[in-house]
């Protein structure tokens, strides 16, 4: 199939073949799923999550806001983030200083090469 065939330099990529593969595999998965347990009953306790200990909170209160997402990731990388965030001062003097600093570094590298 040459339509959509992209040569990447080391291999090939064809999105259309990929979509066909996803559809075939998806159909297989759906077929297997339909072969599974059929005792599922809608609108019964089976559909509710089991929460031990605390009462279930309302749907409106259960949404996890953006400030809480990836807390563990940022906490684990605290030593990386602290200096990085500090670097972003918001001061235009610092913005200009970075330009000069990078220019000086490139000047040295290109000058000696």
């Amino acid at each position, binding site marked *: 199939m040459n*339509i*959509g*065939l*992209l*040569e*990447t*330099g*080391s*291999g090939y*990529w064809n*999105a*259309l073949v*990929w*979509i066909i593969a996803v559809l075939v595999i998806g159909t297989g998965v759906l077929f297997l799923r339909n072969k599974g347990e059929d005792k599922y009953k809608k609108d019964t306790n089976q559909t509710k999550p089991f929460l031990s200990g605390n009462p279930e909170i309302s*749907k*409106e209160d*259960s*949404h*996890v*806001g*953006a*400030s809480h*997402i*990836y807390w563990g*990731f*940022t906490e684990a*990388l605290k030593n*990386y*983030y602290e200096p*990085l*965030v500090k*670097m*972003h001062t*918001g001061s*235009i003097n*610092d*913005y*200009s200083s*970075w*330009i000069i*600093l*990078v*220019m000086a570094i*490139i*000047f040295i*590298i*290109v*000058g000696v*090469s």
Partner: protein
Amino acid sequence: MSSILMHAPALIIALPLLAAFLTPILSRFNGKKISWFVSAVLGITLLLTLYMAGHILIDGPLIYVFGGSEAGLTLPSGYNFPIRIIFQIDAMGIFMALITAVVSFLAAIYSITYMEEHTGLDKYYTLLLLLATSMFGMEITGDIFNFFVFFEIASISSVALISFRSTISGEPAEAGLKYMVVSSISALMVLFAIGLFYGQYDALNIAAIASFMQYTQLDKIALILFVTVLAMKSGAVPMHMWTPDAYSEAPAAITMVLVAASQASLYALFRIIFTIYNITLNTVTVGWIIIILGVLSMFIGVTMAIIQKDIKRLMAYHAISQTGYMLLGVGVGMAVLADPQALESFGISAMEGGIFHIMNHAMYKGLLFLTAGALFYRTGTRDLSKMGGLANKMNYTTIFFIIGAAAIAGIPPFNGFASKLIIYESVFQFNPLLSIIAMLVSILTLASFVKVFHSAFLGPQLEEYKTVQEVPKSMVLAMGVLAVIIVFFGLFPDIIVKNLVHPAVMALINQSRYTSTILGGM
């Protein structure tokens, strides 16, 4: 050659420029319809650009000499280098002009309803037209001083648009001021570098300077100035800090155009190092400088994005990160430019990946900024912590966001995957570690957009957004067109790479073809 085609290079500048001056006058008669007039002008400009692209990709570069007896007369008798301003549009130039044409047209369409409640729209549309004009100029001019003029117009119009009064929240004036300062520094540096060329070679034409290039100490200084300030204007780390300020405060449609304007600076960087200097410079050193700027931009951009709570600021950091991919791909091409075997083996592919990513990025980042604008339009906030459950009410926006997010994260079958795959595979042959970093950055990008999707669109409907509706049709249309382009480029990347990207890369690499178009066989 038809008369329209012959004058098309001048017309794609003249049309939006003339319309920019007409807009304040026409708005006196009917202020409400001015958005339609601007959309129509940018639509015609898009058609003209497509028409020119068809010609250039089949018949070769197009040149236009201003003030000459003939549009194609580059060397009047008695001269061995051009003295007039010349527009020279090759495959790389038209590639960039197509991005500008699509993005500025869709920005005008989106703005029809996004901006309709605001005052001062004559100024808004005048500035938008001026920004489009300047971007076209930067991309098609063959004259380095003329480039500086358009570079300045782009900066001035961008500053005014970032600070546009109608933005409800945030600090647009401060963002505009910061952009003005960094733009002024960059303009001074560019002018100084141009002065160094002119002082040595008595020429301002890019092809002429390229043919005279000796790579003297002064040329080295000019190179350093160009690389630094154009990388800064592209948003490369660690000179990126203006980007989140400017991108987050500007109106959404303008942010999309600002991304394309940054890419025009990136184009200028590539044009200067490949067309003016080419193999006269130390390609390995300069290539590695660009690669390192690219890797820093990719990694620091994405890690800073993950911790943002302002949706546009988060996307702005992603724009920095994605610029890193372009720098990486083209940097690898530069590093092996003097090695014909490596260039053939993986250098050209790496550059194709980087250049293809420029167009893909303009489309999916444009779409993402427009979806952020749609959310702001309906909720009045950019704070992700205050959003939630919007997928229930904003179905089209949700679908467009998913398409844009999947594309930027490099998920098949969208366009971002195609260009990233080329970059991964070709860069791997140059240095496997760089390729691994690029893949890691894609994973972090996906994680970041999962956060946005969860925060803004998923979850139960919030009480304050119970009455929220889908955005008006003109906004949906602009986002829809970008989504269709993203899907098409993702499904048929071969068409774009063969017909647009590969010719653009070859136009960059092949310095002698660029110079001989103007100077003949000298």
